[in-house]
């Protein structure tokens, strides 16, 4: 390494801190967690599976009995499975893994700035270190750098503390909900409270294209 490079390397180290970032605590913390996982007893999942199976059988029986009595069909809401029928299998599999109440809260846009080139879906837990943790949020991401825009549709499934935002305007969506708009030159967001007080947020990032607030509202109104 040349002297100039060494100086830059040293400056990075000075900036981040000369003390070692890796401590024994890192090792202990990791092995504690792995040991905890290995020691987990395995009878609980079996009991849960048996209970779920019993509930399903009972439910199916009750459903069958009711269908004999009540032949009037009520229109059903479109499920998230139907809404995302054209999405990649990987995304659909992740959605199918979610609890039913979380699935029921998911909404997706049908309008996009342009034909999306990529679809991804992520789930964030309240405590990412605990597999059994409650779900904090879900996010559909569309677009990709190659199309010059990115659209992030986030639903929070638990109460969150919002950062202070400075809305540029407030709009009323077609569903009657009040939504706030905020952002800057590179990204714009629209946010509103959905059913059960959960938040929905759409962020439109513009890498090369320029979008207006109207584009954002149009996307929000297309959510189903």
């Amino acid at each position, binding site marked *: 390494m040349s002297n100039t490079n060494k100086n830059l*390397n040293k400056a*990075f180290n000075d900036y981040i801190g000369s003390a*070692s970032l890796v401590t024994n605590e890192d090792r202990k913390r990791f092995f504690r967690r*792995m040991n905890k996982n290995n020691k987990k007893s395995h009878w609980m999942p079996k009991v849960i599976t048996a209970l779920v199976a019993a509930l399903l059988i009972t439910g199916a029986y009750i459903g069958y009995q009711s269908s004999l009595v009540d032949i009037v069909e009520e229109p059903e809401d479109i499920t998230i499975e139907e809404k995302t029928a054209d999405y990649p299998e990987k995304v659909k599999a992740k959605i199918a893994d979610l609890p039913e109440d979380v699935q029921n809260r998911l909404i997706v846009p049908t309008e996009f700035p342009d034909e999306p080139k990529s679809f991804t879906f*992520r789930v964030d837990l309240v405590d990412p*270190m605990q597999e059994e943790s409650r779900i904090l949020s879900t996010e559909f991401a569309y677009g990709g750098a190659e199309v010059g825009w990115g659209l*992030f549709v986030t639903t929070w499934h638990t109460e969150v503390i919002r*950062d202070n935002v400075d809305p540029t305007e407030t709009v009323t969506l077609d569903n009657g909900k009040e939504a706030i708009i905020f952002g800057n030159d590179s990204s714009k967001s629209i946010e509103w409270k959905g059913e059960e007080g959960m938040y929905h947020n759409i962020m439109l990032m513009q890498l090369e294209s320029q979008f207006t607030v109207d584009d954002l509202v149009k996307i929000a109104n297309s959510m189903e």
Partner: protein
Amino acid sequence: MENVILTKSKDEIIDYVIDQYGEQIKRVIFTYVKSYTQTDDLFQEFLINVYQRLEQFEANSSLKTWLYRIAINKCKDYLRSPIHRLFKYNEEVKSIHVAKSAEQLAMENEQEMIIVEAILSLPTKYREIFVLRFYQSFSVRQVSDALRINESTLKTRIMRGKKKLQQKLGGEYLEQYE
């Protein structure tokens, strides 16, 4: 040669990863998240991910690049996550800047420190390249492998990144570095 370690138990491999690469990987994680607390948490997630994915590692690839790729992806996932957008973890970053007086900065190699600060203030896609290239001394090929971008895209980003630094610093400071 190094890949011989992969014949050991998973626990031994993790020990090796922490000893050989832990420090540098944690420092790279810090350049993404700029928070010691978050660096600790992401480092744990990185280790868990390595532990879980060891079977997927292809023995003929570079272990170092594979590890960096996992760490970088963890950081990017975090930066994209709503948690990051919701909660601010910037207290410690602020304290670094507050803790360093003007005198201290002058005593340190000032020019390099200014460059480092400018690099760390760049958007992630340029910052990560400079961090790997100039801090971790990765070759262009290694950067390209770690970030999963092709070399021509990488070179374009280096060029654009340098231009952005030039605008920030008012000179071609990075030209002297290889």
